């Protein structure tokens, strides 16, 4: 079966980096995965999204790269969010940060499942804000249990710069434990 994740944020937040790490972790399971990204001409501050399309069974192929809807949305910022509303479908799981909840109008769709990541709490425990993107992957692993958090850890270890490694791993763990369903 085809599964899809879209990570939304602004340039500089590590949206694409999170996308790469998630794709590589899935890739380590031996599954086919395609990771793409969309960004504007800006280096920082523009709307960015990273898409990960993967299969759940070995040997399955990915033909459709312009899929009409996503199973998961990991939202890191509000900018350009309205552009993505048409990609929601029934049972889409949306994870957004606690600090943005009041601003998000993303929630009118009748049957999406909403989760909130306690980003303020996570940030309080991290040394800097740079690793926050990794906490979204932890939160994703909590909800999508087919992806072992150990695979994410392994990927983070191979993909991170030395000075961020510790914080990245910590953010992953914190994301895993700081996610709440929103009713």
């Amino acid at each position, binding site marked *: 079966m085809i599964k899809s994740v879209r990570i939304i944020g602004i340039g500089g937040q590590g949206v694409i980096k999170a996308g790469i790490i998630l794709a590589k972790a899935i*890739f380590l399971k031996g599954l086919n*995965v*395609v*990771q*793409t990204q969309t960004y*504007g001409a800006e280096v920082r501050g523009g709307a960015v999204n990273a898409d990960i399309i993967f299969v759940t069974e070995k040997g399955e192929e*990915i*033909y*459709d790269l*312009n899929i009409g809807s996503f199973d998961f949305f990991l939202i890191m910022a509000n900018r350009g969010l309205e552009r993505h509303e048409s990609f929601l479908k029934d049972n889409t799981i949306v994870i957004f940060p606690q600090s943005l909840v009041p601003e998000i109008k993303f929630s009118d769709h009748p049957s999406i499942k909403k989760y909130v990541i306690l980003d303020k709490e996570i940030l309080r425990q991290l040394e800097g804000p740079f690793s926050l993107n990794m906490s979204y992957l932890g939160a994703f692993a909590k909800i999508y249990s087919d992806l072992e958090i150990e695979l994410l850890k392994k990927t983070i270890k191979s993909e991170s710069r030395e000075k961020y490694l510790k914080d990245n791993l910590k953010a992953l763990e914190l994301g895993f434990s700081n996610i709440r369903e929103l009713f």
Partner: protein
Amino acid sequence: MEYQTFFSFFRIYLSPIKKYQEDYGILMKPGRYLVLGDIACAEGAIYAGCSLFAGYPITPATEIAEYLSRRLPECNGYFLQMEDEIASSAAIIGASWAGAKAMTATSGPGFSLMQENISYAYHTETPIVIVVVQRSGPSTGQATYPAQQEFYQARYGAHGDYESIVLSPNSVQEAFDMTIRAFNLSEMYRLPVILLMDGAIGHMREELIIPKPETIQIEYRYKLGDPQTRENQILPMGQFGEGHKLLVTGSAHEISGKRNYAPEVHSATIRRICSKISNASDIIEIESRYLDDAKAVIISYGISARPAYGAVLALRKKGIKVGFIRFKTLWPFPDIILQKLMNEDINHVFVVEMNNGMAVREVQRVIKNAKIISVTQLGGVIPSMESIIKKVEAQMECKN
């Protein structure tokens, strides 16, 4: 004497990276990787023995230059950051005449700037590889979005009479494989080869399986002094620094390179250069599936061929007998092969591409006994399977 010394430098340092097969250390080890299409292309170039890259950064081809700027020096090759695309194309032509397997990478706007020198490369029969990672134009258009709008620029962009070899990969794996093939064809035919990649592939991470180096066939050019092994129309190539008196000119010339404006000389040169490609049987590659019982066929290439193939599978599940054809070589256009693939029952031909209808014109030229429908996608978006399925169903009047 001074000249000799100067050119010996190039002879020693610009020779293709031949020893890679014994030296795994400088190569990406055989195995399974998740990499960008651009990186797969760059690594393919190293496997093919590319020893010089000259280029100017442009989205979405920048990653090729960025990666090679690190990798080529590791492999005893050279990376040149040029001042623009005109200089980039000139540098790789010069490097090729000094013995290098040379390459550049660009996108639509840079490709336009290179056209004058590409014409020079056709006339001087210079083996070079030009990677064009297409983005959505015209002009700066949607610079970070993909498209397939250089279909004709790759064939007719340069001035004068020539035939082109243009390859079109549809996956990260093929970005690797076809870069090697581009170098091989360019060395075998002593001509520029264009790898026309989609921005969507260049900027997509996907599985790349690197095979064992000894399983990869690598070709080298036929040089002056080599025993003649190639067909007559492919001339041996001289190399600066090897003692030959070489004249390389874009003006009309004899086989020896000497200038000659005589009508019969120039016409013979042009016909010979064109016939190298038009008479070749090993350039065109085409993928075809489910044609035996097909009532309709979807034709596509590059990234659009992926949803197109997915649509074929989905339509067949619904009982609609659709076949699939993918051009792996865009030019020379597979006229004869395409005609042979068409069976009499095929009455609809859909051509799926990310432009306002380019390859469809060639298909119209070749296929006369079926209705040809252009399925186009603009706006920097890859066509979806659903949109292709809808178009086919609407045309074949069997909506479910």
